[in-house]
C-alpha cells in the first residue's frame, strides 16, 4: 500500500479563483492510500517545494500527487523536489487543475468538482506507480556524417577536433556539395572555392576523418550510442589509394559527350572524370553509364595511359559495416525542377536559367570560363531579368512548388545582380520581387548597395509570363508601385528556383526512423529549443536537410550539431527514459506482433530457457525490449494480445485506474 501525499496548489488565484482548493484537499484525503493532503499558495515556489519535501520525510510518503498546472509545466520541477526528499521521481503524478480545469471552467462548484475527480484519478494512478530507474547503455565513440557538403565537412571537422573519429559518407565522387558549385558568396563576395577548398583539404588530411565518397548508407540498425550502419561503396573502377589524380586519363578518354553534372549539364565531360580541380578525394571515377569499356568491353584507353595502374574495370560495389555512437544527417538540398513552370519558358528557351546555373556561368571554372554568355548563342546579354520566388511560397499546387520561403534567394539574387552590374556595367538588370527578405548581418546593407550603388532595378511585382520571341525573351511583369505593366525584351532570364531537400533524405529518414515534415525536411526534436537534434535519439541534423539555410547559418548549425555529438560521445554511458515498454516474458507468446509495430526497432526476440511450474525446462521465444532504444510510445502494448507488453509509467493498470476514478 502506498503512502500518498496530495498537494493542491492555489497558483495565486489562477486555480483558487475557480476551484475551492481547500475542498479539493479535503476530498482527496480520504482516497485510498492518501495519508496527507495539503494546499498552498504556490507549490512550485521554494517554500511550496520545501513543504512537499518536509511532508515526504515526515510522513514517509511513497508517492505524491500535485494538483497544479500542466505536467508539461512543472512535472520536472516536482520530480526534482521528490528526488531531493529521497523519493523516486517517478512516484510523482500531476493533476492538471489549471490549464484543464480552472482556466476553462467558469464557476467554482463545477471547477471544484472536476478538480476533485482529476485529483482522484492521479491518486488512483500513483497507487499503482512503481519506482523507475532509467537504464544505461554504452557509447561507441565514433560519429557518422551523412553528406559531404559544407554542413557535413564542418560538422566532421568540429567532431574530429574534439578528438573523436568521424566518417563522412558522400554519394558524389567528391565532397564539397553545393557550395563547391558556387561562384561568390554573399554578403562579403568571397570566392566560394577560396573558403571551401581549404576546409576540404583539412578534412582530407585530418587523420580522425575518413571520407567515403561515391558511397551511400544502405542500412541502419541499433540506437543512440550503438548504431550499426552499412555503407555501400559504389565501384568507381579506379583504385582510390593508387590514383594520383594526375588527370591524364580524363584527357585521353575518347568518350567526350557526357553531360557534366557539375556544370549542370551546360558542358560535357569524359566518361572518366574528376568533377573539378580541387575535388577531394582527387581521384578519377569512371561513369559506368558512358564508359565503352564497361559497356561493351572495347576501349581500355584510360587503363593504358594510367601510369600507376589505378584502373580496375572489374571493381564491384563493396559493403562495409561500422559502428557509430551518433549520426549526423547533412544531406542538403537541390533546386526544384522548373519543368512545370510553363509561364517562365524554362523548357522552351536555353536562355531561361536557374540561379545555380548562373553561378556556373559566372564561375571561372565554369563552362564559359567565367564570362557571362547566353547559353543559346554565346552572346553577351544586355538585359537580364531575375525572377524571385519561383516555386517558393507557392500554395497553389503542391506538385509544382513549395509552400515555404526558400530563404536564400533574395540574397544570392542581390549578389548576382551586383556582380553582373559590376563586371558588365552595360547591362540592365531587373529584379522582380514580392518581398526582399534580408534578415542577417550586413544583409540589408548588401541589398541596398545593389540598388543604390550598382543601379539594379528592383521592381516590386511579379513576372507573369516569359515568351521566347526570336533571340529575345519577352517578359511581361507588373510593377505594383508604379501601377503599370512592364514589357521587357530580355536576353537572359534567371529564375530563383525554390530549394527542396535532397531525394536521398526520405529513404534515409526511414532507415534512421527519424521523422520528416510534409516537405521532406527532417523534423527537429524541438523547433526552438532543440533545433539540431532529430526526435530520434542519437540522430542530429546539420544544414539544409532541416530547412533552407544560407552558408553562415549552415556552418553554425553544423557546429551546433557537432557540439551535440561531442557532448554525446564524451559520455561513457547513456541513461534513458525510464517510461519504456517492458515485456513480461512469462506472458509473452513470441508472436512478433509488437516487433512489427515498433517504430524504433526496439523489440527483438530471443529463445530463452524457462523453468516451468511443473519443473520441466522449456525453451520459449520471447520478446525483449531494448530500453535504450524504446521511446515509450506504447504502440506495442496495444498490439500485444496477451498484455505481456506493458509501458512503465503508463501501465494498462494505471490507465484503467484513471478511467475508473474518472467514471466513478
Amino acid at each position, binding site marked *: 500500500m502506498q503512502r500518498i501525499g496530495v498537494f493542491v496548489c492555489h497558483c495565486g488565484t489562477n486555480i483558487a479563483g475557480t476551484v475551492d482548493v481547500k475542498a479539493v484537499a479535503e476530498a482527496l484525503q480520504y482516497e485510498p492510500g492518501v495519508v496527507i493532503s495539503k494546499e498552498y499558495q504556490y507549490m512550485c515556489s521554494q517554500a511550496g517545494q520545501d513543504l512537499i519535501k518536509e511532508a515526504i520525510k515526515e510522513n514517509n510518503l511513497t508517492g505524491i500527487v500535485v494538483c497544479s498546472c*500542466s*505536467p*508539461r*509545466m512543472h512535472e520536472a520541477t516536482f520530480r526534482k523536489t521528490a528526488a531531493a526528499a529521497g523519493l523516486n521521481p517517478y512516484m510523482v503524478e500531476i493533476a*492538471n487543475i*489549471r*490549464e*484543464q*480545469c480552472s*482556466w*476553462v*471552467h*467558469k464557476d467554482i462548484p*463545477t*471547477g471544484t*468538482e*472536476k478538480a476533485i*475527480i*482529476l485529483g482522484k*484519478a492521479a491518486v488512483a494512478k500513483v497507487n499503482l506507480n512503481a519506482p523507475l530507474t532509467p537504464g544505461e547503455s554504452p557509447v561507441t565513440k565514433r560519429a557518422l556524417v551523412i553528406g559531404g557538403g559544407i554542413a557535413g565537412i564542418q560538422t566532421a571537422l568540429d567532431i574530429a577536433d574534439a578528438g573523436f573519429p568521424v566518417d563522412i559518407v558522400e554519394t558524389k565522387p567528391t565532397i564539397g556539395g553545393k557550395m563547391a558549385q558556387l561562384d561568390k558568396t554573399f554578403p562579403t563576395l568571397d570566392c566560394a572555392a577560396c573558403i571551401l577548398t581549404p576546409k576540404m583539404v583539412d578534412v582530407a588530411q585530418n587523420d580522425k576523418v575518413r571520407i567515403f565518397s561515391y558511397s551511400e548508407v544502405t542500412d541502419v540498425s541499433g540506437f543512440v550510442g550503438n548504431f550499426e550502419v552499412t555503407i555501400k561503396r559504389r565501384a568507381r573502377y579506379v583504385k582510390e589509394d593508387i590514383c594520383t589524380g594526375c588527370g591524364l586519363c580524363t584527357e585521353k578518354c575518347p568518350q567526350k559527350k557526357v553531360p557534366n553534372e557539375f556544370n549542370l549539364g551546360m558542358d560535357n565531360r569524359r566518361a572518366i572524370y574528376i568533377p573539378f580541380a580541387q575535388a577531394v578525394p582527387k581521384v578519377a571515377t569512371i561513369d559506368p553509364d558512358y564508359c565503352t569499356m564497361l559497356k561493351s568491353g572495347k576501349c581500355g584507353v584510360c587503363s593504358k595511359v594510367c601510369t600507376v595502374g589505378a584502373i580496375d574495370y572489374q571493381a564491384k560495389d563493396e559493403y562495409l559495416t561500422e559502428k557509430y555512437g551518433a549520426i549526423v544527417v547533412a544531406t542538403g538540398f537541390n533546386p526544384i525542377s522548373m519543368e512545370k513552370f510553363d509561364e517562365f519558358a524554362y523548357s522552351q528557351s536555353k536562355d531561361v536559367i536557374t540561379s545555380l546555373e548562373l553561378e556556373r556561368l559566372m564561375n571561372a571554372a565554369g563552362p564559359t570560363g567565367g564570362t557571362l554568355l547566353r547559353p543559346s548563342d554565346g552572346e553577351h546579354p544586355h538585359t537580364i531579368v531575375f525572377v524571385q520566388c519561383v516555386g517558393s511560397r507557392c500554395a497553389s499546387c503542391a506538385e509544382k512548388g513549395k509552400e515555404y520561403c526558400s530563404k536564400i534567394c533574395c540574397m544570392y539574387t542581390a549578389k548576382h545582380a551586383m556582380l553582373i552590374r559590376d563586371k558588365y556595367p552595360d547591362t540592365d538588370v531587373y529584379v522582380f520581387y514580392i518581398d526582399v527578405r534580408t534578415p542577417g548581418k550586413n544583409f540589408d546593407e548588401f541589398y541596398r548597395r545593389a540598388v543604390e550603388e550598382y543601379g539594379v532595378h528592383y521592381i516590386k511585382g511579379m513576372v507573369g509570363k516569359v515568351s521566347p520571341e526570336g533571340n529575345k525573351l519577352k517578359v511581361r511583369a507588373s510593377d505594383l508601385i508604379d501601377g503599370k505593366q512592364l514589357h521587357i525584351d530580355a536576353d537572359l532570364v534567371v529564375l530563383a528556383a525554390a530549394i527542396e531537400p535532397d531525394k536521398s533524405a526520405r529513404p534515409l529518414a526511414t532507415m534512421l*526512423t527519424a*521523422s520528416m*515534415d*510534409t516537405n521532406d525536411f527532417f523534423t527537429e526534436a524541438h523547433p526552438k529549443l532543440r533545433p539540431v537534434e532529430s*526526435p530520434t535519439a542519437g540522430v542530429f541534423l546539420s544544414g539544409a536537410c532541416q530547412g533552407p539555410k544560407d552558408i553562415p547559418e549552415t556552418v553554425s548549425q553544423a557546429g551546433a550539431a557537432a557540439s551535440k555529438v561531442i557532448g554525446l560521445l564524451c559520455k561513457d554511458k547513456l541513461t534513458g527514459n525510464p*517510461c519504456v515498454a517492458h515485456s513480461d516474458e512469462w506472458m509473452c507468446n513470441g508472436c512478433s506482433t509488437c516487433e512489427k*509495430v515498433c*517504430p*524504433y526497432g526496439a523489440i527483438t526476440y530471443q529463445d530463452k530457457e524457462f523453468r516451468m511450474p511443473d519443473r520441466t525446462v522449456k525453451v520459449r521465444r520471447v520478446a525483449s525490449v531494448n530500453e535504450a532504444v524504446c*521511446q*515509450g*510510445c*506504447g*504502440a506495442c*502494448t*496495444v*498490439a500485444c494480445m496477451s498484455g505481456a507488453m506493458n*509501458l512503465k509509467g*503508463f501501465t*494498462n493498470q494505471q*490507465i*484503467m485506474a*484513471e*478511467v*475508473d476514478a*474518472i*467514471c*466513478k
Partner: protein
Amino acid sequence: MQVTEYKPLIVAFCCNWCSYAGADLAGNNRLAYPADVKIIRVPCSCRVNPTFILRAFQRGADGVIICGCHPGDCHYTSGNYYTRRRMALLFSMLDYLGIERERTRVEWVSAAEGAKFAATMNDFVSTVAALGENKRLEDLRCKK
C-alpha cells in the same frame, strides 16, 4: 433545438505531445469547454487500448474521445497511424453491435490548436448530451 439537461461523462485520451498540449493551450487562452470532459494523458494515441474505451463505458462514461497528433506529425513517427487503423476497426465494430456511433470519436489536435481542442470538446459534449445516457454498453452493477 431542444435544450438537454443531461450532463454526459466524457473521457478524453490525449497524447502527451500534441493534444494534451493543445488542451493546455486552450486553457492558456481561457477557451471554455464543458467540465464534463476529463482528460487522461497518454504518451501517444497509440497507447489507447480498446479495452480502456470499453472500460470507460462500463464504468459509466457516455462518450470517449481520443486525441492525437495529426497524421504525419506523430512524435513517435507512426503511432497515430496505428491508432487510426485500430480505432477505425473498433468503431466500425461498435457500430455493428448497434452502439451509437456518436459516442466514440478520434480527433487530431496539434499543440497549436487550442481553439480546435475547445471547439471539438464543445461539439462532442453536445453531441453526446443529445444522445443521453449510455445504455448500450453500460454495466448495471456500476450504476449508482
